[in-house]
């Protein structure tokens, strides 16, 4: 396993897809902070009311959650599909599988490095969010105070889980379809359209009698988990129908399930 992790890390550490994604995630956070700062200072400019209090360092964990879903999740799907699908289109699947480590060892090594990259993207998201909040506080003359370490850790864990689960969708699709472009197309259409329509339809059936089914979808649980990070500074918000603990369990089950299904495919199928 160590050998495959070393190999996977070597090939992915400077991979353009990850480097570009790091830049994009950082740019998204800066953009979100910039727009919200402007709207907070010019409340007449838009109909959305943004409080300056949400942009200070003590609220930065809650603020960066907005970048987690669907934008960050969509990016994770794209990355997963690229990482898994390109192994087939470049013919590198056969190169790695003929070196010695077994198929499952190779696959789990790949998943470990992918999960590590999701953690790196999460840390970049938090670091830039924290830096942006300090810039706003400094300009506005507000005292710099940070959230409790446990809240920062929970926030990092939540975003990482959302990235990892959506990345696993991309990985599994890449393995299933054996082509990166098709996999990322299917993944994006699913998370940005199909799942939303399906949940809306299920929730509308029989006066919401089947809402529990809708609550089992990835998007619903990711949204509920991220929305659990809020405070009075953000104003009143509706309590999500899914608790944070349940959302974590459902998302973790999705991650494990997707990784295992893809592992079974890799183990069973011929590499042609």
């Amino acid at each position: 396993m160590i050998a495959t992790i070393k190999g996977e890390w070597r090939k992915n550490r400077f991979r353009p897809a990850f480097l570009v994604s790091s830049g994009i995630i950082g740019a998204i956070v800066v953009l979100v902070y910039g727009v919200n700062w402007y709207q907070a200072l010019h409340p007449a400019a838009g109909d959305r009311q943004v409080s300056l209090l949400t942009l200070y360092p003590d609220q930065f964990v809650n603020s960066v959650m907005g970048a987690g879903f669907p934008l960050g999740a969509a990016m994770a799907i794209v990355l997963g599909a690229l990482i898994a699908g390109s192994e087939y289109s470049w013919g590198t699947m056969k190169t790695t599988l003929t070196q010695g480590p077994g198929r499952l060892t190779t696959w789990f090594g790949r998943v470990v490095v992918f999960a590590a990259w999701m953690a790196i993207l999460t840390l970049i998201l938090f670091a830039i969010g924290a830096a942006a909040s300090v810039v706003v506080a400094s300009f506005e003359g507000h005292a710099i105070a940070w959230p409790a370490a446990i809240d920062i850790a929970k926030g990092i864990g939540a975003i990482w889980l959302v990235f990892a689960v959506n990345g696993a969708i991309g990985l599994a699709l890449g393995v299933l379809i054996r082509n990166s472009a098709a996999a990322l197309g299917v993944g994006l259409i699913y998370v940005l359209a199909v799942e939303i329509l399906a949940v809306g339809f299920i929730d509308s059936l029989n006066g919401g009698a089947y809402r529990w089914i809708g609550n089992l979808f990835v998007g619903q649980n990711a949204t509920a988990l991220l929305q659990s990070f809020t405070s009075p500074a953000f104003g009143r918000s509706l309590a999500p129908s899914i608790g944070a603990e349940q959302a974590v369990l459902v998302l973790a089950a999705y991650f494990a399930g997707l990784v295992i299904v893809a592992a079974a495919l890799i183990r069973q199928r011929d590499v042609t």
Partner: protein
Amino acid sequence: MENMTVVETNGLTKRYGNGVLAVDSVEMSVRRGEVYGFLGPNGAGKTTTLRMLVGLIRPSSGTATVAGYPPGDPAGMARIGSLVEAPGFYPYMSGRENLKVVADFASVNHKRVEEVLDIVELTSRAGRKFGTYSTGMKQRLGVAAALLKDPELLILDEPTSGLDPQGMAEMRKLIKDIGQGNRTVLLSSHLLTEVEQICDRVGVISRGKLVTQSTVQELLGEEGVLVRAQPVDHAYELLASMFGSAVVSRQDGAIRLQTDPAGSVEINSRLVAAGIGVSELRPFERSLEEAFFQLTGEKQGS
């Protein structure tokens, strides 16, 4: 005593889900230290067989032992280097970095990367991205990757495919050099001259079946003598009376004798003494091409 057989298959068969029988009960035996040519036309089942030997494809039935282990067994894979079909590397990384990735997967020290780059004469261009490589450079990098483990068995699938004549000649020389000593090379090819130049033994596969397996010399058959003489009918009758009609045949206006070429002087003098004009008399050897088409039932030039 050390096992002299490096690759052994028993009834190795692959039938795909759509019913296509790609490989049909192949019984192959590759001996230690030899360069074995796996010869067959395109689509004969060469690549499918090699993929089964390195564990990329599971056989539908039959068994194989490769370097002492079942195909795909990590212990066996540690002793096998392979290049199956086109070399697969990461286009955004340099040739050297690609080899380091492969070395990591194979648990090979990175020092070996420079050694194999030197063997395939790619050191000066190892810093360039793989995506910018020519076909010849890609093939060389593929061979370098296959050599990383310093394997006892090297499996190369059509390594000269897509190369220009100079590249083909260089690759053949490289394979000959690699095949020196105790290393075994299993080389697939659809090029008869390539197999004739490089290989010690050859297995011919056609429509999924291994139709023969022998040394190149055995495949070429016994030596003979080719005679062109006038009048040809008279010459044929005389030679048939001398050697027996079973070893005399006519071919494209000439007469072919299955006999030791050392008897050419005697043949010439007997023909001349009988008043027959001899325009050509030379040792004759069946070409590998002829043998191949005879064995596979394919038509020459088709």
